[in-house]
């Protein structure tokens, strides 16, 4: 069987995108009323929800409170119907625990936690439909939710994935491209300062190619940033319009 | 003629003896209650205990423990009934591995555990309104029911037994919760309800209902039923029939509680005084 062609001779990907092109990104803030902040994001067919509770007093054992900064608590879960084959449990398996940890590390780097000593910030993300780039969609959704909750951030955290196929770096991989098993990287970037909050690289990649992949991912992150910024500004404009008659 | 010992010397045609036993002797009276035997205070290790048996094979043994300090003070979960500063009632319902007909289910199997947990939740909801939980702040009361034999109407029998056991343990209660089960016979065109169905009746029933009543207050503490759809009138009729059954069972339970107290008094007072 011929392997699936991930990049045609004309330079198109299976879903018709150019290598550096992102999937359609749509987002909305303030989806729910009860949490302090919430957001929903669609990146192509990947759909994610994020809610933020806090900063609030420590829940559970107080000994876990940090004297100098806030504790960031994340939970990543996937709806049982989100994947092609039904998942048995939404969270608690190894992959989701790892993902929760990654999210925690990402947002500890971005939130100004030292402003809220001895308190806790809960970030819960839920994948409703999975089609590649789950981590990235979660980070982007969580960023919007954190902003919606009014928690001070150093900068937006924008995430995107990138892979390498036949010497060409592809941005924002879909499930099909992820499943092909080539080298791929997930990058969470603070775009204004250009600092990386998290970089994860899977499978073997030659050192010389790393630059190209990172550049593709970074470019995608900056593109995501532009969209997220527009969403936030629009949301704030709507809110102020509601407030001031 | 030599006898062939290997061959069974019987008539050519045979009938199972069950045919001659009077089982299923015509339609039974739908309002008939199965005779109930109840005895309180029979276990010495538990603070309160009760045993309830319905004629026809349902046997439930129940033990109760009075107020203990809750392990996690005030840490009652949303469903734990810990609100209002009152105590917590913890219920457990177990089916003995030999309790039901047919193949012995694997004890601790997922399906078995699930069914037990659901029954325990139903038991708690039936008992909570009867117990004065507000009198036991930050405490927990425990009830454990063991179904020895399932001959139908098991949950209803467990409710009666559990409330007897709680009363026997000296827990303050508003009233005894009396349980009663009903089922609708599928054969009946009008959908008549039968009180306290046996296991066979329960298995082929079109709909089932379990009720619990606090007779002195005339308050229904549990309604749990389901099955093929029926009019509200039909369910209402079932409810009325079941409540009537509960009222009729009440004196039996009271009697057994009184007898247990008398027995205990007699044991405490030295003979001859």
């Amino acid at each position, binding site marked *: 069987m011929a392997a699936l062609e991930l990049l045609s001779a004309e330079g198109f990907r299976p879903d018709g995108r150019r290598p550096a092109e992102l999937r359609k990104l749509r987002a909305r803030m303030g989806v729910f009323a009860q949490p302090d902040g919430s957001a929903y994001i669609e990146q192509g067919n990947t759909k994610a929800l994020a809610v933020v509770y806090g900063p609030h007093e420590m829940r559970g054992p107080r000994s876990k409170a940090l004297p100098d900064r806030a504790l960031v608590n994340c939970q990543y879960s996937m709806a049982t119907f989100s994947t*092609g084959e039904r998942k048995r449990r939404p969270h608690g398996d190894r992959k989701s625990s790892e993902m929760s940890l990654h999210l925690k590390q990402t947002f500890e780097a971005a939130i100004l936690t030292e402003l809220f000593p001895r308190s806790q910030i809960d970030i819960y993300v839920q994948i409703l439909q999975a089609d590649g780039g789950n981590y990235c969609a979660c980070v982007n959704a969580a960023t919007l939710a954190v902003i919606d909750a009014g928690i001070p951030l150093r900068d937006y955290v924008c995430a995107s994935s990138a892979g390498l196929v036949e010497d060409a770096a592809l941005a924002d991989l879909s499930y099909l491209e992820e499943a092909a098993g080539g080298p791929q990287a997930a990058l969470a970037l603070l775009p204004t300062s250009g600092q990386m909050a998290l970089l994860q690289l899977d499978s073997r990649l030659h050192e010389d190619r790393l630059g190209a992949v990172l550049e593709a991912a970074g470019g995608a992150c900056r593109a995501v940033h532009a969209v997220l910024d527009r969403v936030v500004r629009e949301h704030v404009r709507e809110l102020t319009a509601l407030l001031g008659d | 003629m030599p006898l062939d010992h290997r061959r069974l010397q019987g008539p050519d045609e045979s009938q199972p003896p069950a045919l001659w036993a009077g089982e299923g002797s015509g339609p039974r009276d739908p309002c008939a209650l199965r005779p109930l035997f109840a005895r309180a205070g029979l276990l010495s290790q538990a603070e309160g205990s009760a045993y309830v048996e319905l004629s026809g094979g349902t046997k439930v043994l129940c033990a109760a423990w009075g107020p203990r300090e809750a392990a996690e003070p005030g840490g009652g979960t*949303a469903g734990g009934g810990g609100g209002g500063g009152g105590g917590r009632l913890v219920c457990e319902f177990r089916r003995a591995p030999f309790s039901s007909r047919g193949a012995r289910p694997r004890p601790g199997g997922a399906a078995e555990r699930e069914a037990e947990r659901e029954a325990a939740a139903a038991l708690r*909801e039936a008992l909570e309104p009867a117990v004065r939980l507000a009198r036991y702040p930050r405490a927990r009361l425990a009830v454990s029911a063991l179904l020895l034999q399932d001959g139908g109407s098991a949950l209803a029998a467990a409710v009666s037994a559990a409330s007897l056991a709680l009363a026997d343990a000296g827990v303050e209660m508003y009233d005894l919760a009396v349980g009663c089960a009903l089922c609708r016979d599928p054969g009946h065109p009008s959908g008549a309800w039968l009180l306290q169905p046996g296991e066979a009746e329960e298995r082929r029933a079109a709909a089932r209902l379990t009720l619990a009543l606090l007779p002195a207050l005339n308050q229904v503490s549990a*309604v749990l039923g*389901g099955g093929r*759809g029926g*009019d509200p009138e039909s369910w209402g009729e079932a409810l009325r029939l079941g409540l009537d059954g509960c009222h009729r069972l009440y004196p039996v339970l009271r009697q057994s509680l009184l007898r247990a107290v008398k027995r205990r008094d007699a044991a405490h007072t030295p003979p001859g005084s």
Partner: protein
Amino acid sequence: MAAVCLSEAEKLYIVHGVQEDLRVDGRGCEDYRCAEVETDVVSNTSGSARVKLGHTDILVGVKAEMGTPKLEKPDEGYLEFFVDCSANATPEFEGRGGEELGTEIANTLYRVFSSEGSVDLKSLCINPREHCWVLYVDVLLLECGGNLFDAISIAVKAALFNTRIPKVRVLEDEEGSKEIELSDDPYDCIRLNVDDVPCIVTLSKIGYRHVVDATLQEEACSLASLLIAVTSKGALTCMKKIGKGSLDPESIFEMMETGKRVGKALHIALQKILDEEESLGTTRQKVGFLG
């Protein structure tokens, strides 16, 4: 389930309002809140629906997978329910915190759907004793603003209505071995008949009266509720008391009557919306969570 803290005065205000048939949000005792229903929101399911009832937000996905029929019913498929109380609804549900409520709701759904004829299970059979469709009905609780059971049952019904199961054919060759062939045409599929799928109506006793579709605040004022499953024809298939209080027998009779009346109206309204959405077909603008 944001924690509700109500003072005695606030509770009294709600109870007195209910007595006068005027609730805090201006509804009468038998009125539902405004509900939003949208089907086909998750594309990699066989059927899905999202229901928003006040602040209660439910997403249901139905996935059809092939399995073996149960031993006691060799010629029927079956339904599996799973309820995920996600931490989105409240931080208390984080980790395993939501499991207790989840299994309670799932058990209630099993009980509601236990009546034969709510869904035609025979149509889910592919070949007896060997293959059948198993419908995994997964409920995701996103936000909880009171009256969970009703919202979930509406969402389950809408998702089952939306469910499309691919048609399969069983081919048998000379040696008797069977092969299952999936239809090539994605539009060639089985639809479920949901006419007899019941909806749950929860009636909460507040003071001397009962209300439908209680908000979280009203639920805090109510000690006991009666949950009734009603089909579109007005038949009751399931009854359950929930809460730690008890109910007067007379009020149960009244609640059953109200439940039947309200349930029938609910079915008519839901069916109308579903049919309307269906008639729009592919021209419908999908709103999802972006609206």
